[in-house]
């Protein structure tokens, strides 16, 4: 694998390849997901990529009824809301992600702390290709 710069662009390239990648500081051990260009704990630039297992728990969420234009283009609206959330990763740290596989019309059924696993949403083609980080309920049907 070619060494990618520790950047947001690289983070998105990794997502496109279905990998959730963060960085770890080789000097002090601090970890960051998404990546940072240098360690803000000790200011070293000696970083390495680490792949996250993609398991975690729901820490916060919303079910959006009034979507922004790019979500409207996917067919979401007042009657068809979607869920976005913040996921606490098993390794520590958090990521913001779309939450799939839950009923966004019944937000009161969605539980903070529910176990989740990573999934990747691919949209568009060629230069318009985008991959969105997403999580979905893990394993046995909880709730």
């Amino acid at each position, binding site marked *: 694998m070619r060494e990618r710069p520790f950047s947001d662009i690289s983070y998105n390239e990794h997502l496109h390849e279905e990998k959730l990648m963060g960085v770890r500081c080789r000097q002090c051990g601090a970890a960051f*997901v998404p990546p940072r260009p240098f360690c803000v704990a000790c200011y070293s630039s000696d970083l390495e990529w680490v792949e996250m297992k993609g398991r975690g728990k729901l*820490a916060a969420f919303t079910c959006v009824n009034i979507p922004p234009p790019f979500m409207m283009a996917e067919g979401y609206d007042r009657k068809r*809301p979607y869920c976005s*959330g*913040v996921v606490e990763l098993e390794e520590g740290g958090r990521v*913001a*992600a779309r939450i799939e596989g839950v009923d966004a019309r019944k937000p009161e059924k969605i539980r*903070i*702390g529910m176990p989740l696993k990573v999934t990747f949403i691919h949209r568009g083609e060629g230069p318009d290709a985008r991959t969105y980080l997403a999580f979905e309920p893990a394993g046995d049907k909880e709730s």
Partner: protein
Amino acid sequence: MQKRRKLGRGVAIAGAGMSKFGMFKDRDSKDLFAEAFKEMLSSVDKGVDPKEIDALYLGNFSNDFFVHQAHWGPIISDVIGLYPKPATRTEGACASSALAFREGVFAIASGFYDMVLVGGVEEMSKRTTEEVAEGLALATAPYESRVGFTFPGAFAAVATAYFAKHGATREHLMNVTIKSHNNAPLNPKAQFPMTIRDMMNMKIESAKKKGIPVPAWEDEKAFLRDPAANPSVAWPMHLYDCCPISDGASCILLVAEEIVRNFTDDPIYVAGIGQGSGRSFHDCEDLSSFEATKYAAQEAYGMSGLKPKDIQFSEVHDCFSIAELVHIEDLDFFRPGEGYKAVAEGATRLDGPMPINTSGGLKCKGHPVGATGTSQLYEVWTQLRGKAGKRQVPKKNLRIGAAHNLGGVGGTCTFTILERR
């Protein structure tokens, strides 16, 4: 621990003005700032020659987007006849004019200027609701907006984290909304000078006129629970949890403490100012708290030597109902997890022990984002001078009030303490 900070010399408020807030088809940013400026001039007890003003600091978030015009410093300087003196625009999303206030304070405290005008303006209503939502979403963090978080959606997520941590529910958010709406009719400049009960009656009257089934809500909470009356925007944020789209302007005349008595015998002094920066959801310490607010509060309390219990009333940034709940805890008015209980008991009402948002807050007064910071300080200044009319805080010896302003999803927060000596 923060270093304790102090100003090089004291700064006081000699006058202040605010336009009416609302949605104005026939008035633009220039007209609104002119209205605020004229009121400011007439508020200076002993009068002031505008030619004595040394500089303007103007908060504006995104008129670039909302009315497709940037570079508002000199435009407003032109309107008020200040040219060729310097005009500087400050941007901190919804905290833009609190930053203008802060820069103005520093400019005088440094000894460079003696009299500075600070203020803000925003003109949002010429755009559609969807466009305004897109414009405001420019102030969310990139990692969040790309996975579908809207502006209300981001605060909604904070609400779910707060609920899970402290056991609060949507019902507690309703207490915030009802309280702010009870203050609003007492503020002649408010965009929605109506109580929730007034809103209910209006809808009932309108249904009767149209000959459609007349809704029957037993109380305000029943109205707020009704998805037809109060639909979800980004659960758990519903329509009545969200501030409106607004146009407006506000300004404050800052003067060096040593000369302020040339302009008024009732000056209000800057006792403490603080500002902090926050991080994205993935990186912040606690999803149910705003660290930028805590930092700003620590700075302002430290500078003033005052404690949270010394603050007699406060304006608190309530772009969404949950923001008010979280901030009254982050500002240490209430202990973590106790804020929602205090609001339920009426502690933050106009006649309560700690009145919050006597102006009606952003929810009812309106939130022309760049104008909000100095409009909050306008309210505190008005209250401290005992000139708030029907919404006057009913406390004896009202001496210390504060204003908290937030930009983005807590990316920029300020806390300012004003004092009448």
